[in-house]
C-alpha cells in the first residue's frame, strides 16, 4: 500500500513537471501596460481587443485614471517605477515628463514615425514635439470653440451668435431681461479642471495682440492693457457686475458645463470642440440639435489648438527590443495608420466627435457626414485654421498652470484686481523660469 502511494505521488509529480514544461514551450505573450485617463472606457477596451486579435503575441494591460488626478497619479507611478509602457499624454505635460526622464522621443526609437508629420496640421505636430522631436502619435487633436444655444439666441431677438465679447454681454443681458435664463454663460473654471487656464487662453488669443509670452518666453500677459488683462476683467465683470456668468463656474469642470447646458440652464460656453457632439447627442442631451459652433468672439477669432497623444515611456525602452517593437505596434495601431486605415483615430471621430488629427480625414466623406450631424464641418475647418498652439510649453508649465488657476479665481472673485493677479502669475513664471534655466 505504501509503495503504491509512493508510486502515485511520483507519477503525479512527473506529470506536473511535464505539464509545466509543456506550457513553457508556448511563448508567453508580451505584456504591455497602457495608462490612460478615463474616457469612453468601453471603446478603448474594444479597440484593444481588436489589437490583441491582430497581434496574438501581445497582451495589453489597460488601466485608467480620472483626468482630474491623471498628472499627479502619473507622477507617483513614474517615480515609484510602476510598470508603464505606453501612456496618454498632452502638450501641457510633454516637456515636464521629458525633463523628468519619464518619456522618450518616439522618433529616436522609430524613425518611421516622422513620416506621419506630413499628414498633421502644424499645430498638431507642434503639440506633440519638443526640441524638434516627435514624441507620439495622436489620440485626437482639437480646438477650443464657442458654443451657443441657437433657440435661446433667437428667442432673445438676435439673428446670429455674438461675434465680439461685447456682443456676448449684450445678448446675455437681453436673455436675462427676457427671463430666458438667469446666467447665460457657464465656464469650466473649476480649480481642478485642467482645461481652465486653456479656456482663458483661448479667449486671450481671440483679441488683437493676444499672446501670453514673447519669443523668449517672457510673460507679456501682465502688461497694463494686455489682452489677458482685458479678458480677466471681462470675466470678473460677467461674474460680479453684469452677472451674466454663473458663479458656479468656479466649481464647474468640463462635464458639469456640458450637463448644465444640456438641461437648458445656460446659452453660451467655451469648450473643446468634441463636446459639441455630446451636446447634440439625443441620447445624452435634452436639447440635442440646438447647440451650434460659432467662431470665437473677439477681434481675431483665434483660439487654442491642442493635441492628445500616445507616448513611449523610458521604462518601456529598458525592457528590450521585443517589448519596444510591441509598443510601436500598439502606438501605431492607436494613433497611426495601419493597413491603410487610421482605424482608432477615425473611430473616435465618427463615434465620439473627437477632433480630426489627420488632414487627409477632411477628404473622408464619412467623416464629413459625421461632423455635420452634430456640427458644421466648414465652420470647424475655418476655426481650426485659426487654431494656435499653446504658448509657454515648458517643463514648468504644469506647475505655473496650477498656481495661475488660483490667481484667476482671486481676480474673478474680486479678492485681487486683474492686474495684481496677473502680476503674481507673471512673477511665478519668472521664478520658475529662473530656477529651470539658470544652468
Amino acid at each position, binding site marked *: 500500500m505504501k509503495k503504491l502511494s509512493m508510486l502515485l505521488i511520483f507519477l503525479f509529480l512527473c506529470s506536473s513537471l511535464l505539464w509545466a514544461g509543456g506550457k513553457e514551450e508556448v511563448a508567453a505573450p508580451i505584456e504591455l501596460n497602457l495608462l490612460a485617463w478615463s474616457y469612453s472606457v468601453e471603446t478603448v477596451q474594444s479597440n484593444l481587443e481588436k489589437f490583441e486579435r491582430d497581434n496574438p503575441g501581445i497582451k495589453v494591460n489597460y488601466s485608467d485614471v480620472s483626468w482630474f488626478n491623471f498628472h499627479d497619479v502619473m507622477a507617483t507611478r513614474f517615480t515609484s517605477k510602476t510598470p508603464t509602457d505606453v501612456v496618454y499624454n498632452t502638450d501641457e505635460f510633454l516637456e515636464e515628463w521629458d525633463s*523628468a526622464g519619464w518619456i522618450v522621443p518616439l522618433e529616436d526609437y522609430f524613425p518611421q514615425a516622422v513620416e506621419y508629420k506630413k499628414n498633421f496640421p502644424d499645430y498638431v505636430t507642434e503639440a506633440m514635439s519638443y526640441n524638434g522631436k516627435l514624441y507620439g502619435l495622436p489620440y485626437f487633436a482639437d480646438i477650443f470653440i464657442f458654443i451657443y444655444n441657437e433657440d435661446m439666441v433667437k428667442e432673445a431677438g438676435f439673428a446670429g451668435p455674438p461675434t465680439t465679447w461685447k456682443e456676448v454681454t449684450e445678448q446675455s443681458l437681453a436673455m436675462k431681461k427676457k427671463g430666458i435664463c438667469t446666467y447665460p454663460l457657464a465656464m469650466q473654471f473649476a480649480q481642478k479642471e485642467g482645461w481652465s487656464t486653456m479656456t482663458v487662453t483661448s479667449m486671450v488669443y481671440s483679441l488683437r495682440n493676444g499672446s501670453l509670452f514673447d519669443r523668449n518666453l517672457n510673460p507679456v500677459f501682465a502688461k497694463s492693457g494686455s489682452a489677458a488683462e482685458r479678458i480677466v476683467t471681462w470675466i470678473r465683470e460677467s461674474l460680479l457686475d453684469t452677472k451674466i456668468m454663473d458663479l458656479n463656474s468656479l466649481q464647474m469642470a468640463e462635464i458639469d458645463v456640458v450637463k448644465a447646458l444640456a438641461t437648458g440652464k445656460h446659452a453660451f460656453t467655451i469648450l473643446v470642440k468634441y463636446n459639441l457632439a455630446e451636446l447634440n447627442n439625443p441620447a445624452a442631451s435634452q436639447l440635442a440639435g440646438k447647440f451650434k459652433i460659432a467662431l470665437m468672439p473677439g477681434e481675431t477669432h483665434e483660439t487654442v489648438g491642442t493635441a492628445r497623444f500616445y507616448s513611449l515611456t523610458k521604462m518601456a525602452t529598458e525592457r528590450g527590443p521585443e517589448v519596444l517593437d510591441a509598443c510601436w505596434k500598439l502606438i501605431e495601431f492607436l494613433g497611426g495608420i495601419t493597413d491603410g486605415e487610421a482605424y482608432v483615430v477615425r473611430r473616435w471621430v465618427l463615434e465620439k466627435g473627437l477632433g480630426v488629427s489627420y488632414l487627409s480625414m477632411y477628404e473622408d466623406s464619412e467623416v464629413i457626414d459625421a461632423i455635420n450631424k452634430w456640427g458644421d464641418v466648414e465652420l470647424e475647418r475655418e476655426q481650426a485654421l485659426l487654431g494656435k498652439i499653446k504658448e509657454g510649453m515648458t517643463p514648468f508649465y504644469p506647475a505655473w498652470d496650477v498656481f495661475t488657476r488660483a490667481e484667476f479665481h482671486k481676480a474673478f472673485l474680486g479678492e485681487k484686481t486683474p492686474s495684481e493677479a496677473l502680476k503674481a502669475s507673471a512673477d511665478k513664471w519668472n521664478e520658475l523660469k529662473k530656477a529651470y534655466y539658470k544652468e
Partner: protein
Amino acid sequence: MVNRSRRERGVSLFRRRSSTSIYGYGTIAPAVIVIALFTIYPFFYAISASMRHLVLTMPYDQRFVGLGNFIEVVKSYYFFTSLKNTLVYMLSTLILVVICGMTIALYLNSGLPGFNLVMIIILIPWAIPTVVAGITWKLIFHGSYGALNGALYSLGIIEEYIAWLSNKYLAKAAVIIAHVWKETPLVAILFLAGLKTIPGELHEAAMIDGSSAFKSFFRITVPFLKPIILIVIVYESMVGLATFDLLYVMTGGGPGDATSLIGWFAYTETFSFLNIGHGAAVSLILALILLAFIMLYLRLIRIEEMY
C-alpha cells in the same frame, strides 16, 4: 554542593530569561519591522529629502541645500495664508466637534428614549469613508442642483440659488461643517464611554446639596472626563491640521486659496509642482506644528491633576 546548586539555578534562570527575551523580541519584531518600514524609514527619508534640491523635472541636480527648502517654503506665497487658514480650520472644527460630541454624549447618557436609534444614526457618518463624505457634502452644497439650495428655496428662505463653494467664506464654512459631521460620532462615543464611568452617586449627592445641573457638569462631569478630553483634543487637532482628503474632494483648495491648508500645499508641492524637497519641508513643518500643539495641551491639562 551548595555552590553548584546556586550555579545551576543561575544558569537555569539565565536560560529562562533568555528564552523569555527571545520570545518577547520575536513577538514585537513584526510590529517593529512594519513601523520601521512605513514610519521610521519614510520619516528619515523625508528629513533627507527636505534638505536636498529634489525636483523631479531636474533629476540631474539633487544637491544638498541644508535648510534652503524650509526657507523657501516659509518665504513662499502660500505659507502664512495657509498657516492662518489651517489654524482657523483646526480650532473651529475642534471646538465644534467637542461641543457637538459632548451634547450628543450627554443626551445618550441621560436615558431619554430613542437611545438605540440615535446611536445608529450618529455612527453613520463615522462609518462613511471621508472621500464619500466629501462627495456627498459637495453635492449637498452644489450651487446648481444641491440639496441645501433646494431646501432653502422651497422654504422661501432664499430667492435664488447660492454658489456656496464659489464664495471664500461660505466655502470655508462648508468644509468645516462637513468635517464636524464626519468627526462628531467618534468623539460622542468617547465621551459617552467616559460618562458611563462617573459614579451616579456623585450627581445625586450634588443634587441633594442643591447644585444646579450646570454646576454639576463643570464640577463633576468635566473633571472626570479630563483624560478623554485630552485624547479628543490631541486627536482632533491632528485630524484638523492634517486635513486634505475632504478639501481635495469638496473644493480643490479653492476658490483661490480660500480652503488651501498647509497639508494641501504639501500635496501640491509634491505632486503638482513635482518639488519633493519643498513637499517634504512643508510636511515636516506641519509635523512640528502638531508636536508644538500636543506639548501645549499636555502642559495645559496635566495628567497628574486629572485624578
